[in-house]
């Protein structure tokens, strides 16, 4: 029996070394050599300072830029507290929160009619860190951004169109707009049209 137990302990230690340490370090090494950008979290730099990740949503609440979905990750888009609301569809408290969110979206974007608010822009994503919004949700914000920044609607509509992420391989997923990418591009436009505003909104870029 003791002999058997020694075998089992040896098996445990050996597999720990292979499956935990060896395997993790192997993938880490491959990442270092072949995919350093992805391995470090797809971080975007501006003036050699990190300003965000191409994969993680950010708190875009200013009316001058494209807003993201509501977030339940910590106090909103906290990259260390991923999580969803977990509200059930018929939870009265949830519906009360939704009423506020929908009414606010309608008020902020007068061009949108009641019954036309895209479902995604008033609901939380699965992790609270999702950075995609539907194409409709992006177009719906164009009127507001145009009147606040003075950028013509046609220019903004074009911006949205050029930044649509279509289905991958033509099949997988649902088309949407990456808000981090979109707002970075928007920052260039605002810089051109209204430099003072640019400095006020994009504090992280100046």
């Amino acid at each position: 029996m003791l002999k058997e137990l020694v075998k089992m302990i040896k098996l445990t230690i050996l597999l720990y070394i292979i499956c935990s340490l060896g395997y993790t370090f192997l993938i880490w090494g491959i990442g270092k050599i072949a995919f350093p950008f992805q391995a470090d979290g797809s971080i975007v730099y501006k003036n050699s300072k990190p300003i965000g990740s191409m994969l993680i949503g950010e708190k875009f609440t200013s009316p001058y830029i494209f807003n993201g979905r509501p977030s339940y990750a910590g106090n909103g888009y906290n990259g260390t507290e991923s999580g969803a609301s977990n509200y059930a569809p018929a939870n009265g408290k949830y519906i009360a929160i939704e009423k506020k969110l929908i009414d606010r979206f309608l008020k902020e974007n007068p061009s949108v009619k009641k019954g036309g608010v895209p479902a995604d822009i008033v609901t939380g994503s699965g992790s609270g860190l999702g950075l995609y919004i539907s194409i409709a949700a992006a177009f719906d914000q164009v009127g507001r951004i145009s009147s606040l920044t003075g950028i013509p609607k046609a220019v903004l509509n074009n911006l949205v169109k050029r930044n649509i992420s279509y289905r991958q391989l033509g099949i997988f997923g649902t088309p949407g707009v990456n808000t981090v990418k979109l707002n970075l591009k928007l920052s260039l436009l605002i810089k051109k049209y209204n430099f003072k505003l640019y400095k006020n909104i994009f504090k992280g870029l100046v």
Partner: protein
Amino acid sequence: MTYTGVLQILITLAAMVIAAVPLSKYLAHVFNGEHTFLDGIINPAENLTLKFLRVNQNEETGWVTYLKTGLIVNFLMLAAVYFILRFQNFLPFNQMHYPGMPWALDFNTAISFITNTNWQNYSGEQTLSNFSQMSLVFLQFTSAATGLVFAVAFIRGIVRREAKYVGNFYADFIKAIYRLFLPLAIIFAVIMLWQGAPQTFVMQKKIVNMTGVKQKLSMGPVASMVSIENIGTNGGGFYGANAAQPYENPNPFTNALTIFMMGTIPIALFLMYGIMTGNKKHAWTLFAVAMTLLLVCIAVVYSQEAHGNPFLAKLGANISVSKNNPGGNMEGKQEHIGIAQTSLFAAATTAFTTGNVDSAHDSFMPLSGMVLIAEMMLNLIFGGKGVGLLNMLTMVIIAVFIAGLMVGRTPEFLGKKIEAKEVKLATLAMFAHAFIILIPFAIALAIPAGLAGILNPGPHGLSEILYAYTSAVANNGSAFAGLNGNTLFYNISLGLAIFFGRYIPIICQVAIAGSLIKKKSIPESAGTFPAHGFLFYTVVTATILLVGALTFFPALALGPVAEHFAMVKGHLFY
């Protein structure tokens, strides 16, 4: 539901089945000890390992020793990881100085990972050091291998005639890891890395966003964990939100790939069983049973989620699909991944008992939530590593027994007589599963400590608790995450449910193998009930549905069904 939605579901499923066919042949070769194309690389490593362990792989043992060795090895690994988590503050890769895990949470977590459950009462990025996450990866390999080798032992029990020995546990275990899990885990980890999953030892990065908002990002060796958590149908992710966190699942392609990773091996095991028993028609019939159930489940979930939440429509949201607006029930879902992929993911993760989630199951419509719970209650729609096949075969034994009773003959199964002992063990395995779900569920409903964890009021609260125990016992690990499980009561009761839910059925099933292996083969006659074809398919499906419905319907009626009808009437719960 859209045409493209249905198409991407079918393509993902088809890819799994197509890949499962060659994989099943490979696996049959591996466990029959035959030549495979990887021999050149893996044979030397394997021989060295066996030499180091002083194991002679030709020295096979009976089922009792095989089972005992497996269980003790499991226990040793459980203990090792328990101590690593408990004392992670003394171990490396802990830049955030997270304290050791509290004992009750640690008890729950260690049991959860050694049993392939990966129920998580903690949020990974806020609780665990990178070293602890890596130790969980170790269990993700070994727990998957454990389930697989017990299934192999069971198959040998059916195949071998008038024999005693089911195999050598060490050799099978090493083979499962070296020849299946490690190579696949490495390949898929690299793909996930390429697509954007981080792999670093930095735990947190502080940044200032373009708008000047400060943001902290949690990172770590994510790619390596994402890969094995799905290949091993473990499901325990690096982050609290699992595959809903973009770092674990950066885009729709990785979402489909994740589903592919979890489904391919369980399907291949069904087909491997056909090759090893020399009865492919039988295996394909069982495949058809499981696939039918899976398709029905996907259809319900997808149609419910695509239909969306009527309450939001009343408030002014547009829940119907149009060119630029995907609509549907988007609460807790990722926009770019979309309703179709998310529905498939949810139905797959509960079918293949992975438990990884790319959305908040708690926010699903009542009937889709019910389907997810039901899939785990049945626990045989391909199921997890090995155990899904074992559960299916257990149900087949019961089906064959019932069919035998109806015609008044001693039931036979693949040339072996099914007698009182096997039927008793199969029934015990089946009832243990139901009992360990329903009894603690009833207790939790009756005491304040159980009710305290509920987030959503009304019948949905009941569903949250039902989901928790079903997920624990089915070794799934997904959750209606509104339930706060990190309390003394839930840590202990769920931990115990996971433990007994895993090992009691496995012990019964390996015991069936031990009993079958001794039997001699009886030649097929005109009166033999063929174990394939439409009749067999119908009998097995009917047995599964009848047994499942009779056992679990009352609980489901009180939760999701009640909630659905209240919702249709426009009733909100406060």
